[in-house]
């Protein structure tokens, strides 16, 4: 069997092998309660990666996701008091709005997405520092429990975050497989000039993809701030690398067009297992970033579709 036919199956095979290795090394790992907790913990990261999938699926990237989540933790903490549950709507609106801005700058002003999203990220950083006064803020505990307590509660052994993740994944999967938007995004990722030539308003759909990425990064930020019961301009730092890794090891290559949100779910689980395995195998926490950086390089090198790159810049 040649490598190209094996390639689409690599993510789940990798996941199974990793789980088997960690499972044999540590027998508490495979206990259902442990697995559920593990997956519950990684939900904010998963949601951010879910959003990033849309940006990467069209062959772009969203480097603002982390700054966006930071900003949203601050927004959620500040406006929870005055808006109550409506603050969730505000958060998603802010995220989708900034995402739209990234998309507009990328498509209409023709600025490459890694620069436009870096710039939007800069604006998000400024905003979060302005709003927070450069301090760490705390949510009113009673109010948090009243409004968002259900998010972090458990039904039996199942953390509710998993339900949120499942619902979002189902919606994203529906968008990807069953809507015009999903088809167009695939067309754009597979070959933008062809998509444009067949009469599709490519710019509009690309802007939508960045808006979705921003909106999901916002939801990730919201859940994260509810979990930590507060917000700060740098609280979600360290999310961007594992989120990109999750998308890529899941099998959505940087060149776009293949893979998708289901792949990202598998990719996120791979990230979670790698993280946990480092604990079990006694690798220092400080080594984590380096490990993920190396995994990222391998993942890109394996998944990228070089036929699409005429010159590699």
């Amino acid at each position, binding site marked *: 069997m040649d490598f190209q036919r094996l390639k689409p199956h690599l993510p789940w095979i990798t996941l199974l092998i990793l789980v088997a290795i960690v499972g044999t090394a540590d027998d508490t790992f495979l206990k259902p309660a442990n697995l559920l907790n593990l997956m519950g913990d990684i939900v904010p990261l998963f949601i951010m990666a879910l959003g990033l999938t849309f940006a990467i699926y069209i062959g772009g990237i969203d480097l603002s996701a982390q700054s966006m989540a930071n900003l949203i933790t601050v927004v959620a903490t500040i406006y929870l008091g005055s808006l109550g549950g409506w603050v969730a709507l505000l958060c998603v609106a802010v995220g989708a709005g900034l995402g739209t801005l990234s998309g507009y700058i*990328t498509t209409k002003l023709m600025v*490459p997405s890694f620069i436009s999203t870096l710039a939007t990220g800069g604006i998000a950083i400024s905003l979060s520092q302005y709003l927070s006064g450069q301090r760490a803020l705390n949510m009113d505990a009673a109010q948090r429990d009243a409004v968002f307590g259900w998010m972090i509660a458990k039904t039996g052994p199942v953390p509710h975050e998993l339900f949120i993740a499942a619902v979002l994944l189902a919606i994203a999967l529906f968008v990807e497989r069953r809507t015009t938007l999903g088809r167009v995004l695939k067309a754009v990722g597979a070959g933008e000039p062809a998509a444009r030539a067949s009469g599709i308003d490519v710019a509009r759909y690309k802007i939508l993809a960045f808006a979705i990425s921003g909106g999901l990064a916002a939801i990730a930020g919201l859940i994260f701030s509810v979990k930590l019961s507060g917000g700060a301009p740098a609280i979600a730092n360290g999310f961007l690398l594992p989120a990109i890794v999750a998308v890529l090891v899941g099998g959505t290559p940087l060149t776009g067009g293949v893979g998708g949100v289901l792949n990202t779910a598998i990719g996120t689980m791979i990230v979670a297992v790698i993280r946990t395995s480092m604990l079990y195998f006694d690798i220092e926490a400080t080594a984590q*970033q380096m490990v993920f*950086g190396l995994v990222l*390089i391998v993942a890109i090198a394996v998944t990228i579709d070089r036929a699409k790159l005429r010159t*590699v810049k």
Partner: protein
Amino acid sequence: MTRLITRQKLIQWAPFLVLVVLMLVFTAINPAFFSLRNFGRIAISSTPALMVAIGVTFIIIMGSIDLSMEGTISVCAVVFGYLFLQWGGTLFSSAWIAIPVTLLLGAFLGLLNGAVHVLLRIPSFMASLAMGFVGTGLAVMMTSGEKIFVKDDAFRSLVTLRYFGFPVMVYLALLALLIAWLIQSYTTLGRNFYAVGGGEELAHASGLNVKRVRITGFVLAGVFYALAALFAVGKIGIAESITGANFMFISITSVVVGGVALWGGTGGVLNSLVGVLIVNVIDNGMVVIGLPDYVQDGILGVLVVTAVVLSTDRRMISVVK
């Protein structure tokens, strides 16, 4: 009929005009801005950033991008700190060897970065971003978050010893700028950078070893990042895993705002000097006129988009990713 002010000319001089206007505005609001003391402050804060900007300029001229600087700087700073203390802790002992070793380390990290990009055929923004993550991770691992204090008076004279109001490191940075300008303007390598950036396929077809030029570019950039690390450590006397933090956004903004087109083939290190000064004048000026410094990131974000938009020749591109 020739027009005196063409679009081309305007774009070429726009960054310089922006710098002059900014300085006039800040001076008008607070005359204290226009003083030797304050210029000294701007020069010091510009020095490490200028080294990073020069390094990434070579890469951008080739039409690639390098996002690995934060990691490279942190690793160089931390290794320099350890070696310097290990080998005597003062410039007057054999500890001075730590300086050339750090520059070599920068070159080596640049080589790795370039090799991952060119040999594995990964687009440079992603290859270098990943290598930057690895670098920062390595620095965190080496230090476990500890700070390394480099208190040697001789080394710190980089910033404490002043001539005509400016510390020694400013003059050293100007020397490095001169060398970079010479490489860019008078060497085959410099011309090759422009050849690759102007049209890679054409350069390849005329017999240029594009891969080697690209990798050499990343090596050269690595050396300038190592210089930035030395200046950054000299500036505050501390080497740590976050020595390189924030340099990515600031340096790329500087280069692009200075008028080096992201598409490659145009601009040069003098543009980057103007860009670095614009960014640092804004930073300093906002404090001088009493605005909070957190506005800076947002303003830089707007500036960089404006600069890219102005420098883009829309007829030439079809697909923007």
